[in-house]
């Protein structure tokens, strides 16, 4: 049977996210409880988390979390890293052996910064340089998958139920101002941890529930610009779309949401001039980045979270607010599990992003 990356595997899912707007850091147990309530939305074939603000002591360095299938893959990849980055710290990612999680690959973490001479020679900015290096590692070496590459953030994922994945990675020992989580229900046995979610590139991470019908239109567009969809999953391509629109094209997060879940033309044509001009431009300039089919996504980024439904709202998603904390999840029960009363609970309208940022510049 083909492994994930050689074949496209659709999947259903559960997602959850928490952010403290005041920057207060909380450990990963809360998000784990939240996603665990939606146990039946996943089938034990993938779970994962991303936490932001978890590496304050290394906040200026890219944190690479990497899966290696064997020592040889690790050796080859490390040679590459050493020639392109200064490694500030490297260690095995702390895990705990539990019966529910098996067949783990080698999982390592590297805090790195681009080697100044190499960076200069590449004529790229630091982020683009790092992104391209990540794609080289993920495509050139078999058995290597860099699944987290941002600063002061990290992705933790595995084949298993999400609550077990949290215990495996000892998430109660990390503290972050925001967390997102994912429980996966793939329609095939992935057998490779890379296929679990979140997907992340640089500071962007995405959890996603749905199966997008625009996948190959989106993939073939984004691959023109140096991105490689090595795992052929919806979430992977959505992650790259965010990076492309926001980091490369300098769109705001809201504008990027207007490309990804664009309003219908009928609605655009009835808008005031300024909005109509902007949306007409965005839909005409980036028609191939419209994402159709059911999706609910939570995008993690430095200093905030963004939640977005497809424009028909074909997947459930609920948001809630209590004091300085905002919760988002596939089902309301996942929010009520960790907080009993709210200032506000609402179901975001399809295509309208929920954007939450830290107050001031706390990131």
């Amino acid at each position, binding site marked *: 049977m083909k492994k994930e990356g050689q074949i496209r595997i659709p999947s259903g899912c559960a997602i959850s996210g928490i952010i403290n707007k005041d920057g207060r850091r909380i450990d990963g147990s809360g998000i784990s409880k939240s996603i665990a309530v939606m146990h039946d939305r996943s089938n034990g074939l993938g779970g994962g988390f991303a936490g932001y603000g978890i590496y304050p002591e290394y906040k200026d360095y890219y944190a690479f979390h990497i899966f290696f299938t064997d020592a040889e893959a690790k050796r080859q990849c490390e040679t590459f890293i050493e020639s392109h980055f200064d490694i500030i710290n490297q260690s095995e990612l702390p895990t705990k052996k539990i019966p529910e999680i098996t067949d783990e690959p080698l999982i390592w973490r590297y805090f790195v910064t681009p080697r100044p001479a190499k960076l200069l020679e590449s004529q790229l900015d630091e982020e683009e340089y790092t992104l391209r290096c990540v794609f080289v590692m993920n495509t050139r070496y078999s058995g290597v998958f860099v699944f987290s590459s941002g600063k002061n953030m990290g992705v933790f994922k595995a084949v298993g139920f999400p609550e077990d994945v949290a215990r495996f990675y000892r998430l109660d020992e990390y503290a972050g101002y925001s967390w997102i989580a994912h429980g996966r229900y793939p329609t095939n046995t992935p057998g490779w941890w890379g296929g679990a979610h979140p997907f992340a590139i640089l500071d962007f991470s995405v959890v996603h529930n749905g199966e997008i*019908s625009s996948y190959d239109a989106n993939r073939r567009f984004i691959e023109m610009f140096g991105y490689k969809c090595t795992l052929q999953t919806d979430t992977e391509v959505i992650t790259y779309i965010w990076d492309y629109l926001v980091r490369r094209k300098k769109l705001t997060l809201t504008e990027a949401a207007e490309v990804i879940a664009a309003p*219908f033309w009928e609605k655009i044509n009835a808008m005031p001039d300024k909005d109509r001009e902007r949306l007409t431009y*965005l839909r005409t*300039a980036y028609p191939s980045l419209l994402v*159709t089919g059911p999706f609910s996504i939570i995008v993690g980024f430095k200093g905030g979270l963004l939640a977005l439904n497809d*424009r028909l709202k074909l997947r459930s998603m609920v948001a809630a607010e209590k004091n300085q904390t905002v919760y988002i999840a596939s089902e309301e029960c996942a929010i009520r599990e960790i907080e009993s009363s709210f200032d506000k609970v609402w179901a975001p309208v399809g295509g309208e992003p929920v954007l939450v940022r830290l107050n001031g510049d706390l990131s």
Partner: protein
Amino acid sequence: MPINYEDNIYEVIRNRERCINCRVCERQCANLVHKYSAETGEMVSDSMTCVDCQRCVSLCPTKALKIIKNINTYRDNANWSESAIKSLYKQAESGGVLLSSMGTPEPYPVYWDKILINASQVTNPSIDPLREPMETRVSLSRRPQNVERDGEGNIVNTIKNALTLSVPIMFSAMSYGSISYNAHKSLAIAAKKLGIFYNTGEGGLHRDFYEYGANTIVQVASGRFGVYKDYLDAGAAVEIKMGQGAKPGIGGHLPGEKIVDDVSKTRMIPKGTDAISPAPHHDIYSIEDLRQLVFSLKEATNYTKPVIVKIAAVHNIAAIASGIARSGADIIAIDGFRGGTGAAPTRIRDNVGIPVELALACVDTRLREEGIRNDIALVVGGSIRNSADIVKAVALGADAVYIATGALLALGCHLCRSCHLGKCNWGIATQNPELVKRLNPETGSVRLINLVTAWKHEIEEMMGGMGINSIEALRGNRLMLRGIGLTNKELEILGIYHAGE
């Protein structure tokens, strides 16, 4: 008297019991097949000149007529087919180049028929176009590299001259001269009411049709017939015709008989002279010359109109398209070798060029490999026969399609492939006023609108089935396609998997 080797291809069968000798068939046939015999008091037919256009059959009030193939049989020969032998006789007789009309009838593979479309089951929902919005609107233009903002940080809409279509279908180039005034008028009215575009072809634009300019693409071909400032200004876009799928590598020839009053005025050439388009544009001998013409036309129209470059699908199409994408053109139109024509040398029509499906797939792939696919829009034509062909074309990578043969069929054409004779009984490919008036532009335009509307519904149904509610999300979405009965090489070029994979 020399032996006449020619044999009639079709035979008129008249049911004597039904025939009432009303002489409708006689009046309808410009080829003079039917005539009334005063001696016998009965209708007689000369099948020799019959082109099987079905006009008499359609109009016979008692359904007394039938046209069948002549069953006279030459001795079987798998190598020397009957049509090969007959063609040879014709040339031995005339010493001339064989002429044909419309797309090649030869049994080349039709890849549309070897591609299957996907639908949603369980893991994502299909969408019902009767209950949910379904978008078929597309915009054709160059797309900007960078986002520009004003002083307040608002995005500036820098895309000013896109062609916006309510559905990704346009009527392809057919010149006034090759087709009639009424045929042109039907296309113009329909394009306007549908919110799409029709194309003048290379024969200029009749004064009467300037009012449809907002839905008109004006063509500039190698003969430059009818090209002047007002003409360029009249259209919504300018198309440079470099080639035509039915006759790649050669120009055109409209015989003097068709250059009647208005045609002569519109083309700006003397009445009765042959209108000959040279094979190449004599100011374009290379890609850098094309760039100059693109920008000359943009200058002439003050950068208010997109420029389309239309090319025939030939072997090296991917590299050519890549060059055009960098020429400053906004849209590339590719015409496949099954595309129609008003007249072409038979041997060229039947042997030169490649199918549009393969051309489209390899061009789209190549432009993506070079990272420039988003810079330019891609329109394909050359035998788009139905809505499923359009869905497949868009999923392979087209922004929109051109239809011409399909549009003529809607107007009554029965594909008798005799346009070059100028005696079209349906009033389409003729300048004979008696024949032209048979086509009513109001009725014709309604039939065109019906056709495109029906196809739009079908496209929406297929998109909905795939869980797609905007045609933009279908473009280049090749995972929605599977090949059936194709070789690995064909699948590789089309960039799709085989059914079952």
